[in-house]
């Protein structure tokens, strides 16, 4: 291998791989993010790296970009061994990286962002005018059009991403790494991005695409590697594999594509909502008269495009309606009326009434990221008698309980002293789910249970939700993922513009019918509503 290196700078007949990693390992404290990784990417190809959240994909690429130093291992670029000590070294070696969270200066212009760190001299003017020319050329070559004088905060997310790609190309990158590039894009923007990437590949650039979306891998990559729990489990040609095969490699076992559940045996009504209305402090009607009933032992799924009142519904049920809003209507749980305002309308009171809540945004409402997992497991229930010793908290008891719950919910790593921030998205969600489900609530409110959660954790969380239902509890499930709603729910209600557009049984409906309802069109009962107000 070493013999093929640099004969007059030109690669020998058997061209060395653009990127070759050997035995890369990296750990953060107790978390082993990468373990003995080997990877080979040929020049002029698009290579996908797929894996669940927390599988170590981003860490691996950050190592390649010099953001982290590996604990062990070797990096070779074009057959030449490299020590990439910092980002500057990576840029010199021809590597460009588009991070999941863009590294752009919001109030700088596109041009200023492009030249930052790659200026030609001490004065800006020559660099700016040269960059302007280069940008015009790149825009022509690769459909990378952006107004160079616009500030970043004025640009759409898709355009901001183009700026990141342009930054890399301006630095003459031959290897372009993109970390979850489509997570923030609309489908049309994603298609445009793929056209750009194909154009770049055809020019001889090497592209590494990190994603957890199988569809993208199948659509655009030439070769693909699969990572699982910090290890590289397979590298294959995309044409020789299938989505099912990749999914299985990702999670390490057969994926349940459908949730297996017995038919529901609904009992008494647990939640009754009658003509619930919310007007927010700006006078906009957020809920326009909601009527709902959920019985013990059933899952009611609420489908809808986000921003149609689902959040407000969850907040008022959870006991924290938005400040300054005016509420009317009735909510009953197990027959008792809940207060909609005043001092008895709070989350703690709701919990005492047997309502559990897995909030929509786990990082803001569900967890305190800087607190340890065991503390997070106790939140909301920290006054519980089993957590107390007289007037004091019994930390030992809480830790024991938290450790047991973390064990049962397979939170990885199973370390209850680790701050919530240091868990991957799926494992953070498992902590929240464990806390709420293990309290065995009569009514469980669930908002977006699997947003940003990997396939393995989705399956696990779904199974727990169904188990709770089978234990005779009522469940309100709000999700923007139609597949999730259709596979989990016993009944489906569709929300649009603060109203329930209609209820359907999953067996009797189709995605397209629900889609119409979600767009405010009732295909069976009523004429289309005039759209008076933007949700």
């Amino acid at each position, binding site marked *: 291998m070493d013999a093929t290196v640099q004969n007059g700078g030109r690669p020998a007949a058997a061209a060395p791989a653009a990127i070759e990693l050997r035995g890369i390992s990296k750990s953060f404290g107790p978390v082993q993010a990468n373990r003995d990784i080997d990877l080979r990417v040929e020049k002029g190809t698009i290579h996908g790296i797929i894996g669940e959240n927390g599988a170590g994909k981003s860490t691996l690429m950050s190592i390649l970009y010099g953001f982290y130093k590996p604990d062990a291992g070797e990096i070779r670029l074009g057959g030449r061994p490299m020590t990439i000590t910092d980002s*500057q070294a990576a840029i010199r070696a021809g590597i460009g990286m588009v991070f999941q969270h863009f590294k752009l*200066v919001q109030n700088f212009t596109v041009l200023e962002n492009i030249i930052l*760190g790659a200026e030609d001299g001490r004065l*800006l003017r020559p660099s700016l005018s040269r960059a302007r020319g280069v940008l015009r050329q790149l825009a022509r070559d690769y459909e990378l059009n952006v107004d160079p004088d616009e500030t970043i905060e004025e640009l759409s997310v898709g355009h901001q991403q183009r700026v990141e790609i342009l930054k890399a190309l301006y630095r003459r990158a031959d290897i372009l790494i993109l970390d979850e590039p489509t997570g923030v894009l609309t489908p049309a923007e994603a298609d445009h991005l793929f056209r750009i990437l194909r154009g770049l590949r055809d020019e001889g650039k090497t592209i590494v695409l990190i994603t957890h979306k199988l569809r993208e891998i199948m659509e655009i990559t030439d070769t693909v590697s699969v990572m699982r729990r910090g290890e590289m489990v397979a590298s294959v040609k995309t044409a020789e594999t299938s989505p099912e095969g990749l999914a299985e490699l990702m999670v390490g076992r057969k994926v349940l594509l459908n949730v297996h559940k017995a038919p529901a045996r609904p009992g008494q009504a647990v939640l009754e909502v009658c003509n619930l209305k919310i007007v927010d402090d700006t006078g906009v009607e957020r809920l326009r008269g909601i009527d709902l009933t959920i019985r013990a032992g059933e899952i009611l799924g609420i489908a809808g495009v986000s921003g149609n009142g689902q959040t407000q519904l969850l907040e008022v049920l959870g006991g924290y309606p938005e400040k300054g809003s005016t509420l009317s209507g009735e909510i009953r749980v197990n027959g008792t009326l809940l207060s909609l305002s005043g001092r008895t309308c709070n989350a703690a009171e709701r919990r005492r009434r047997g309502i559990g809540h897995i909030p929509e945004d786990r990082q803001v409402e569900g967890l305190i990221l800087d607190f340890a997992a065991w503390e997070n497991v106790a939140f909301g229930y920290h006054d519980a008698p089993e957590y107390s010793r007289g007037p004091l908290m019994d930390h030992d008891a809480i830790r024991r309980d938290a450790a047991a719950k973390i064990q049962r919910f397979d939170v990885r790593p199973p370390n209850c002293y680790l701050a919530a921030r240091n868990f991957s998205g799926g494992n953070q969600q498992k902590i929240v789910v464990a806390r709420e489900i293990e309290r065995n609530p009569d009514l469980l409110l669930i908002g977006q249970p699997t947003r940003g959660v990997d396939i393995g954790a989705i399956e696990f969380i779904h199974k727990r939700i169904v188990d709770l239902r089978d234990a005779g509890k009522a469940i309100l499930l709000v999700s923007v993922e139609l597949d999730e709603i259709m596979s989990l729910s016993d009944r489906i209600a569709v929300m649009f513009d603060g109203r329930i557009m209609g209820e359907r049984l999953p067996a009797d409906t189709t995605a397209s019918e629900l889609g119409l309802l979600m767009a405010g069109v009732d295909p069976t009962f009523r004429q289309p509503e005039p759209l008076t107000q933007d949700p």
Partner: protein
Amino acid sequence: MDLNTVIQILDSAVRLMTPLLLACLAGLYSERAGVFDIGLEGKMLMAAFSAAAVAALTGNVWLGLMAGLLGSLMLSAIHGLASITFRGNQLISGVAMNFLASGLTVLLGQKIFGLGGRTPTLTPGAELEAQVTPFRIWLSGITGPDAAGWLTATPRLSDITLPLAETLRPVPVIGPLYAEVISGHSILVYVAFLMVPLTWWVLYRTRFGLRLRAVGENPASVDTAGVSVTRLRFAAVAIAGLLCGLAGAYLATGLSAGFVKEMTAGRGFIALAALIFAKWRPWGALGATFLFGLLEAVANRYPNLDLGIVTVPSMFMNALPYILTVIILAGFVGRAIPPRAGGEPYVKER
């Protein structure tokens, strides 16, 4: 109010705004790079003391100026170490600098001069002579008595008369304005005013300025571009130290003649308020500090402002700059958006 009075007030305003302007620009460099600097006050105080002390001991104000810069830089280095290298809380580190300066200046002053914390007055006289003599004798051994006498004869910054000042004086309005307000200040006043366009140019026209602004807005963008966040921030903090050094040295050897305990009197905090008022822009800093300088000048000129019906007491007039500070900090001047990454130590995220 006649023209003469206006000119006198403006002249006084220019002198009084100079330390504010230098400190404000110091804060601007530091905060634009994302390091909050509440320790401007302490750095100025340290510089004022070091400058006055060395000027008193050597009889040479330029050596005093050097000492002032060093004193301020020393505190900057500690602030940088605490808040950049060790990622400590920038506000706490700044407050610590203020306490350190406040205590250290008085302690050292008493130890060296035994005058209750102040330095000898920097005007020729017996008090100063007594301090300078040992240095002059030592220097004579090296340079000869004539040179030593010459080198130890300027303990204070002298005022510079600009060319044509006297020739133009008879010209109505412009003449006295030029001769009094523009001409006849110490070198540091001119340095302070030149720093404004220079700072603007550095920030918006140079590579260093681009990176400096970027590191205060989004340090990750600078880091991923392969530029050291730490080095940039240290550079900014060092510049802030130098500017505070100039401000303090001017205070003790230009505006007054010697150091007295707590002589900065909150000017570092007023400079911070001016920085917010200026929305972290160099020309804005000029305007904001002029306003504060003017208020102070008016207060000095009219201790008891007679408005016919009521007489505004002097305490109120003296408090005016501080009242304005409170009003500005309370956000009555419109929204000022600070640098986005200000106050946050930079840590690489996963």
